[in-house]
């Protein structure tokens, strides 16, 4: 009974992480444009930073999944992601101000600013996908199929995050309001995961311990 609950939670949270990554990436263009314009190189900087961060995140997430994969660590990823996203919301302007003064070329300015604002949160969000696969594989045997399904769900989340943000969210909300909503959902997701980990632990203790 708990296994299917865990699977459902992992899929939901993977969806959330996919949604958040792309929503933040799209808002990145908006956040940087007052300082670096909205030219193609600004998007080049943002996409580069997100790709590099995700690559690093996959590596770390995969490595961490080797040691006793559990929902508590998984939930902690979400809490940490929320935590490192907060300075971007609160001090983004100050950071960009600093970079704007230090670097004259808007190409490298936007690259450095993207890295300052988005590298950490995206690395942490990137750790979620491989760790999710590991959590699901603990519960099932078809690892390839599980990985496929997981990427399906999280990429679908990314697609929806892109669409919702660019079509509707920016039409009704301020950039920071949307980012705060992301922070709140990450905290909520992480908390649920940790709570379930406790329950699951008690369950395991009762029947196996």
């Amino acid at each position: 009974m708990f296994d299917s609950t865990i699977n459902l939670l992992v899929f939901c949270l993977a969806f959330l992480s996919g949604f958040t990554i792309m929503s933040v990436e799209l808002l990145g263009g908006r956040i940087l444009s007052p300082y670096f314009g909205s030219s193609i190189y600004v998007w080049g900087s943002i996409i580069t930073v997100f790709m590099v961060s995700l690559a690093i995140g996959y590596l770390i997430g995969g490595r961490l999944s080797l040691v006793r994969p559990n929902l508590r660590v998984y939930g902690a990823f979400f809490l940490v992601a929320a935590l490192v996203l907060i300075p971007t919301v609160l001090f983004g302007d100050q950071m960009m101000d600093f970079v704007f003064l230090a670097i004259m070329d808007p190409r490298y300015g936007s690259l450095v600013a993207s890295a300052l604002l988005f590298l950490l949160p995206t690395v942490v969000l990137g750790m979620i996908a491989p760790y999710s696969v590991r959590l699901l594989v603990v519960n099932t045997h078809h690892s390839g199929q599980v990985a496929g399904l997981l990427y399906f769900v999280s990429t679908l989340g990314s697609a929806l995050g892109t669409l919702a943000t660019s079509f509707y969210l920016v039409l009704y909300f301020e950039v920071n309001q949307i980012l705060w909503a992301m922070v709140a959902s990450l905290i909520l997701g992480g908390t649920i995961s940790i709570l379930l980990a406790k329950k699951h632990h008690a369950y395991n203790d009762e029947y196996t311990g």
Partner: protein
Amino acid sequence: MNIPDKRQTLGSMKHRRIGLAGWLVGILMLAVTTGAAADRIIHREKSLYRNIVVKEGNGQRCLVFAVKLGDKNQTCMDIDQPEKVVFPYARMTFAGLLLTPAPKQMLVIGLGGGTIPTVLAGLYPEAHIDVVEIDPAVIAVAKAFFDFRETDNMTVHAGDARVFIKRAARKAPRYDLIILDAFTGDYIPEHLMTVEFLNETRALLTPPGTLVANTFSTSALYDHESVTYAQVFGEFINFKLPITGNRVIIAANGALPDRQLMFDRSKQLTARLESHGIQLNSFMPHLTTARDWRDDARPLTDQFSPVNLLREP
């Protein structure tokens, strides 16, 4: 049971094919009729930002930012009388001189074919003009096909206007006249329409300086844009002509001059602008400070600027 279904599908496919052929004929006819027979393309290039086409016909040479069939001209030049300003919206821009009749430092954002800076340079040969254009290809085309020239007093900067203005604010040059002419395409740069941007721009104006913005008079954006300008500049002059969908906003860094003063200036300036086909005194009745927009519209900010979404009808 399956056979009639199949037939139906075939039937509808046939219909679709006729429909497609009809479409093609329609598009062809449209192309022939709007092609204005004499138009010939003399230059075509794909830049980083847009497709640029220069075409000639009916005694005019036009710069077209082609995105789709039947795109509008961005700038046109009368080949025999290049000093004439062909487009009403470009002529409307010069109403800004009623507030600042003798500018010494000017900033023009958006080059196009270079009509506006070229006329300004002719009117005020002693003044210095900075032009900011995001697309280097447009700068090259303006020089090659529209007689645009950089001189000691005319400097063109290739780059984003917001970045230029933010940098300029730190170096503190001041402009008597700033012309914002970057909104004529199908896409509006969203970061050039916000309260923050206008505040940064206003900070570059000398105390009685003037900002002239060429924008649109239609769609939901009108209310949002008006409220945004009002928040930064207070009362401003709204200038619309019945013949165009354009709107020119004329805002002052300080109090607006009284009507009589503007009227006197229009008489003095009209003679100098006549050779460009600009009748400044005819603009006077259309300059108004009346608020014809919804005051409860949300101002555009760096946090909230869905400009291109608001432009949808």
